[in-house]
């Protein structure tokens, strides 16, 4: 693309949902956009959540206006990227210890927020969801959905690239050139050395790391970081996302996503934006909290536990003790041309991008409205809805079982070759996130070395063996947090395969934290 015709140069820092939303909004308004991500797209908070695309019903009582915004955005995203959305539907169930009056308030709130809601016969709900408690006394259906975060973010990134923008993965911002009090350039460091990105403006969309980026900009952004931990159950225990019928809180949601189901989340304030540590007590707390919803939960297999850190901007003079608002905040760092956007949610990420876009556009005096809600994400107008059975059906139809590289998730070997050859992706975690390799019950026990064999075959210079070591150590790290029942056997089998058969060493010190979702 001819740079001279492009608008002002904006560097967006952060390749999560927020940063991708901002970058896409800006490029559609004619800006020259570079997105900088220190890891892989969505490897931070954007993939460390329960996977829901909210109808907003969850906030129908606590924040009805926000609930309405969620519903509008949820509709837009489903239209833009149906291939990343599964219309699971959601249920709100009243169990004996939920407040008796919440159901009516909930119903009224949904109606006010324009969220389609239906009250169901509890007997029907319990019949169609055999795993849930037999104590349901009220139940409501709402159009909750789930989103496959990596798929959607990669669609957005592809669109940005297609429109002439740049997406730099594995590039870390080291400093900003703010000569004269204005953003001049962003210094980044990547796999092939450092780069200077000339810029007229910067949007800090680094999620929990926004505070650190703001400090590099010479700004102080007060964030509250909350860690939420989630348990991954080995199959779908429920068909719809199940919420408790009470004020939204921790420990109250079970979401079927892909081939698994997630229960979450804990909530605790942390200092370190990079922490992914799930404390053993959190696992116990999650199990205890899930028991009333799914009786016998401790007999179910849990594949792993992981955590994400959610950043919320603390407004000035916010009363202590009151929970922080869910809505995002855009901070305009004065005349420097720097902005910070933080908070919000996956469901509203497009709207957040639009809001940040409005700020940036008005900074440059450009009067061009956002087009991100109406411009299709893919040139062909989007695929068909995401159905997690597609992989298995594909293997059945083609009778190509021998080519299946990851059996648990039915991933064809050719898909992997294609990604390695066409997109140059060789890092196992990158392939894993895009294709779901190693997400299933065996957690990489069998597919790990098959992947290594294939990548090494395609590129003999790639350090596949070292990568395999790190891949296994990471899979094992999340899996050992839930090492009971048959998953404990799985872990020891995995150990037998990797150490006693392949000869791989296991050394905690050699594989520090990171990439562990």
């Amino acid at each position, binding site marked *: 693309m001819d740079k001279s015709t492009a608008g002002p140069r904006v560097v967006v820092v952060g390749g999560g949902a927020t940063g991708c939303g901002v970058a896409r909004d800006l490029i559609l308004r004619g800006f020259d956009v570079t997105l900088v991500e220190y890891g892989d797209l969505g490897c931070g908070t954007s993939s460390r959540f329960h996977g829901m695309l909210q109808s907003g019903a969850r906030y129908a009582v606590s924040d009805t206006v926000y609930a309405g915004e969620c519903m509008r955005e949820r509709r837009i995203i489903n239209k833009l990227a149906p291939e990343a959305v599964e219309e699971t539907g959601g249920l709100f169930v009243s169990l004996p210890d939920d407040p008796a009056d919440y159901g009516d308030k909930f119903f009224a709130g949904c109606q006010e927020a324009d969220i389609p809601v239906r009250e169901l016969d509890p007997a029907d709900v319990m019949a169609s969801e055999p795993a849930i408690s037999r104590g349901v006394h009220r139940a409501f259906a709402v159009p909750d959905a789930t989103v496959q975060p990596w798929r959607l973010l990669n669609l957005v990134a592809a669109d940005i690239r297609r429109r002439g923008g740049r997406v730099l993965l594995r590039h870390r911002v080291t400093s900003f050139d703010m000569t004269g009090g204005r953003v001049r350039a962003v210094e980044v460091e990547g796999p092939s050395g450092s780069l200077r990105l000339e810029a007229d403006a910067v949007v800090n969309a680094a999620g929990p790391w926004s505070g650190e980026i703001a400090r590099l900009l010479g700004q102080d952004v007060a964030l509250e970081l909350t860690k939420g931990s989630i348990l991954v159950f080995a199959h779908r225990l429920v068909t719809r996302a199940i919420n408790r019928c009470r004020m939204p809180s921790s420990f109250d949601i079970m979401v079927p996503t892909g081939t698994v189901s997630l229960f979450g989340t804990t909530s605790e304030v942390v200092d370190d934006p990079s922490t992914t*540590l799930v404390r*053993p007590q959190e*696992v*116990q707390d999650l*199990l205890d909290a899930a028991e009333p919803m799914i009786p016998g939960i*401790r007999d179910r297999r849990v594949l792993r536990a992981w955590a994400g850190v959610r950043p919320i901007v603390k407004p000035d003079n916010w009363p202590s003790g009151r929970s922080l608002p869910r809505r995002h905040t855009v901070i305009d760092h004065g005349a420097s041309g720097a902005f910070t956007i933080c908070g919000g949610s996956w469901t509203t990420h497009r709207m957040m991008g639009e809001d940040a876009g409005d700020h940036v556009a008005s900074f440059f005096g450009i009067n061009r409205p956002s087009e991100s809600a109406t411009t299709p994400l893919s040139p062909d107008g989007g695929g068909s809805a995401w159905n997690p059975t597609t992989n298995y059906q594909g293997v059945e139809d083609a009778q190509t079982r*021998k*080519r*299946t*590289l990851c059996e648990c998730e039915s991933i064809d*070997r050719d898909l992997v070759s294609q990604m390695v050859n066409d997109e140059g992706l060789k890092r196992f975690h990158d392939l894993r996130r895009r294709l779901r390799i190693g997400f299933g019950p065996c957690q990489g026990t*069998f597919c790990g*070395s*098959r992947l*290594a*064999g*294939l*990548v*090494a*075959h*395609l590129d*003999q210079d*790639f350090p*596949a*063996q070292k990568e*395999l070591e790190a891949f296994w*150590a990471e899979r*094992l*790290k999340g*899996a*050992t*947090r839930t*090492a*009971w*029942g048959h998953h*404990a*056997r799985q*872990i*020891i*089998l995995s*150990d*037998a*395969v990797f*150490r*006693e*058969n*392949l*000869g*791989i*060493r*296991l*050394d*905690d010190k050699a*594989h520090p934290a990171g990439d562990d979702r």
Partner: protein
Amino acid sequence: MNYDVVVIGTELDGWVAAARLLELGRSVCIAAPGEGSLHYAPGGLHVLGHLQGQPVTEPYAGISALHDHHPYRLAGADRMHAALSWFDNSPLGAGFTYRGGQRCNSLAVTSAGLQLPVLSSCDHQAGVEQVQGNVMTVLNFSGHRDFPSGLLAAEFIRNGERVTAIAVDPPGARTDSVTIANAFDTMDDPGAWFGDLSAVLPGDTDVLLVPAVLGSKRHRDVIAAATRALDCTVLEVPTLPPCLPGIRLRNACERYIHEQAGTLRRGFRVAGMDADQDRVRSVTGSTGQTIDVSAVILATGGVLMGGLEVDSHGKITEPAMGLDACQTQPLSKVGAEQAVDALHRAGIETDEDFRPRHSGSRPWQNLHVTGRNLAHWNPGAEISAEGVAIVSGWLAAEAAHRELGS
């Protein structure tokens, strides 16, 4: 029905104990609900390969560095040597042709291009010594996904070896290890098959490395035929599970037990026992059948095979006999290495005859625990699975035989 000894489980330790007891003239019933972990065993006799992350050259010398209650420390070097020598010379080892008797480890090649120390490797298993410096060809079967030949070849190249990777269609329609092995077993003329292969084999090949799937019964004939047809050394490298070298050993064990008229009660899950003080009198299966016994050997395979169970609070129990499991470290460790270590090291503590504690310091008189059920060892970190299985299984059998008297 009554037997002198009931061996619970078809782990290697169970097979060894049963074989030894039958040899000593005892009546033996092996009771096991499912198949055992030999299906996962890559072959070779791993006795003590690593200590503190470093390769071990002399396993017998290395045992002093192990935990006081490590199975090898309970056995002592002399009894260890006796057990391993018995295995080498027994129909189990003979059926598998270990080149045994050594006191020093050699290095076996893994499919990830790494090296594993092994006291005696099994027949035709690729060792580092045999391949280094030779012109190698790595063969894989198209569609056979359990052998990462690309990785193996790339690692050899990285280490400066001369190697080519080739892929050919497997014999037979299917591409999994066991069916390929069966196809070699039932082939009329394996030499002719390898004769065809020579057309695509680089001419200067000194060593052909193949996935260890060249038959489950006739592998030695097949490899001999291959060697003749190709005029080069043919060596096997273990695949991912299912592993043919382990399955061959399992088959040899089963065959021997049948030949010796041992009884195999497959599917029989021991769910409880009756005891008189410190002596087990009978064991009862999950369907209510009872077997009267004079001695019991519990070879149920630890956490890996369900011999030990872990609950969601991290507590470990022994489900068949209700023995106390020792858990020196909490399972809720932060790092993966530590967490796996804690899972491995938990288990049943025993005396030198592998008898668990009954009450106070007194052991059960006729109950022995073996293999992965034992506490204070870590097969993954030590590379010692077969060694501990054979040593504990054989010594448990010896002790049971002594107790039974004449």
